[in-house]
């Protein structure tokens, strides 16, 4: 779950970090009132969970409440990288002296938490890594040890502060807060970019974002509720698909993909692409998927406006082929689109038989099946 800037900043604030005054607004009137309350100049920031919203016109400065009202009318409803702007975060305009970068992730290789710190920020970490890799320092934190003074020391001095500078404790506060957010909220990423030194000499997270582990949302009912109310980065199809319980990602082609297992499903997409087709989606029915899930999966693609051919590629491990076949049969009972099915695995023969009964062709190999799917989509 990707957290909005305002949600992330609220967490920073909860853990004692000073953040710029800000109000979330859902209508131009709310923007106007917020601008008056906060005091102009203000910044209007589109709350969409994508990078680069500034370049896309999602961040504007308003010098009066009236200007804020005016600007917000254009910003609400804007599309930024496919996402519609529904909320604006109205924040105090802050004069900035220097922009830094600080993020916290889980490092897969070392199985530790990892801070990435750079004394220059404001652009994506990828860009810093390309232009000035020597500016990025890695500070590892073991989960059994947690953030300690020596980590803070390492980060604060790398960001350019001396222990006796007033900013030192502010950096310490940001570092501690990021770690607490990471651990307490099961985050996979907590980022402040830019982490700014203001003209007044304060260190504040001028922008911030976080991604929370979807597998841990059961522990965080407040976030789960926020996600329910504002699915943020998913299309209607994605949202629906996830509610049914499988992994679904929207792509831009016309061949609907259903696979079991993430790797096989991705490989099926790649295979379609390899033979000249364009996958419309990623739909993984997962391990141990029930007949009902398979049925719903096929139905999603039957209803998908862009999908012209459905390609089901199942190599049975924990999934039982007869369950898959029955799900497909049930889904097709209500009419259909061309379907190419390949099943191999557990209870395979039974699955084949079930499909044969409804006249759906079966392929032995995914390669032939992929070619057939691409052919049907032409």
């Amino acid at each position, binding site marked *: 779950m990707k957290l909005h800037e305002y949600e992330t900043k609220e967490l920073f604030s909860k853990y004692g970090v000073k953040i710029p005054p800000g109000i979330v607004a859902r209508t131009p009137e709310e923007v106007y009132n917020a601008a008056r309350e906060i005091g102009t100049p203000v910044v209007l920031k589109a709350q969409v969970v*994508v*990078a680069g919203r500034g370049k896309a016109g999602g961040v504007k400065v308003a010098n009066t409440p009236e200007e804020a009202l005016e600007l917000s009318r254009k910003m609400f409803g804007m599309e930024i990288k496919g996402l519609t702007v529904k909320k604006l975060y109205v924040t105090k305009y802050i004069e900035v002296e220097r922009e830094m970068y600080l*993020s916290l*992730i*889980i490092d*897969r*290789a070392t*199985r530790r938490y990892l801070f*990435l710190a750079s004394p220059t920020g404001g652009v*994506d*970490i*990828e860009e810093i*890594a390309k232009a000035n890799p020597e500016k990025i320092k890695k500070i590892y934190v*073991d*989960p*059994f040890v947690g953030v300690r003074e020596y980590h803070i020391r390492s980060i604060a001095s790398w960001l350019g502060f001396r222990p006796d500078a007033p900013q030192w404790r502010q950096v310490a506060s940001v570092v501690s807060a990021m770690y607490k957010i*990471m651990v307490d909220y*099961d985050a*996979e*990423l907590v980022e402040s970019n830019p982490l700014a030194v203001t003209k007044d000499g304060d260190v504040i997270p001028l922008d911030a974002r976080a*991604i929370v*582990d*979807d*597998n*841990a949302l*059961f*522990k965080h009912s407040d976030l789960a509720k926020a996600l329910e109310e504002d699915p943020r980065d998913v299309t209607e199809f994605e949202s629906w698909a996830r509610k049914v319980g499988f*992994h679904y*990602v929207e*792509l831009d082609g016309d061949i609907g993909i259903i*696979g079991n*297992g*993430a*790797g*096989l*499903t*991705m*490989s099926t*997409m*790649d*295979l379609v*692409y*390899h033979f000249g087709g364009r*996958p419309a989606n*990623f739909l*993984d029915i*997962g*391990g*141990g998927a029930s007949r009902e899930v398979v049925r719903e999966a096929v139905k999603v693609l039957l209803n998908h406006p862009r999908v012209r051919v459905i390609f089901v590629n*199942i*190599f*049975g*491990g*924990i*999934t039982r082929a007869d369950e898959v076949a029955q799900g497909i049969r049930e889904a097709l009972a209500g009419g259909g689109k061309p379907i190419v099915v390949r099943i*191999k*695995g*557990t209870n395979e023969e039974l699955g084949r038989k079930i499909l044969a009964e409804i006249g759906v062709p079966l392929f032995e190999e*995914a*390669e032939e099946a992929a070619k057939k799917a691409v052919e049907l989509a032409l």
Partner: protein
Amino acid sequence: MTLINPNTKVVVQGATGREGSFHLQRMLEYGTKVVAGVTPGKGGVTVHGVPVYDTVEEAVRKHGVNATAIFVPAKFAVDALLEAVDAGVELAVVITEHIPVHDMLRAVNYAKSRGVTVIGPNCPGVVAPPIRTKIGIMPNSVYQTPGRIAVVSRSGTLTYEISFQLVKRGFGINVAIGVGGDPVVGLDLMEATLRVAQDPDVDAIVVIGEVGGDAEERLAKLYAEGAIGKPIVAYVAGRTAPPGKRMGHAGAIVMLGSGDAGGKIRAFREAGVPVAETPFEVPKLLAEVL
């Protein structure tokens, strides 16, 4: 044999559950020495003739269990793993999916500090046809042909698919390890490859990667440095995966600009590892490097 051997005695945690019971039977059929099951509160029953206990400790004490296959639901899986570590198993295969990554991060570190090897979570496990031992959920039918090829993979079904292709073209399999699709796994693609490379009965390794993380890049680097010492053929899934999106596996995501399939394929090729364009090309490339 890597990870398992003829003395491997397995307990199934979550033995009385639907999946646990189903796969316990498949493991027995394959030839695995599944000697005990554990389901707290169900001690005393048997599942497919295997006695079930309340605790792993009891299974270890009574049957000399040294490996576990964990099938318990995500909310309880970390506890099950820690229990197995404390009970003294040497290998823990965590099949369970959807375990919170921070919990697994701590558990994996703890297991390592106790000298326990963890495979998974969110993995198909490990299977060794030469000794007819499987700890996991791979389809038995695919792993009937022993041989000298190792398969190491971040995927489940794609591993079966490629193993199936290998066998179909006459290759035999020494061991297949699905390391798991989560961001944090007990043994990652690089580490597992390094392990199988040390087995004198392995001639070549098929590595199956996917988007997310940098295990493939780290492996490519090791290979280039000569640390693997055996031919590798790679396949990487997810060339058509969009950035910033989680592709089914919790670990399959391009984040902070790193982990895309293109970069991994490039890293392999630059290190001298041939990369298959499709799963079906793997046997062909394998034949070329042997």
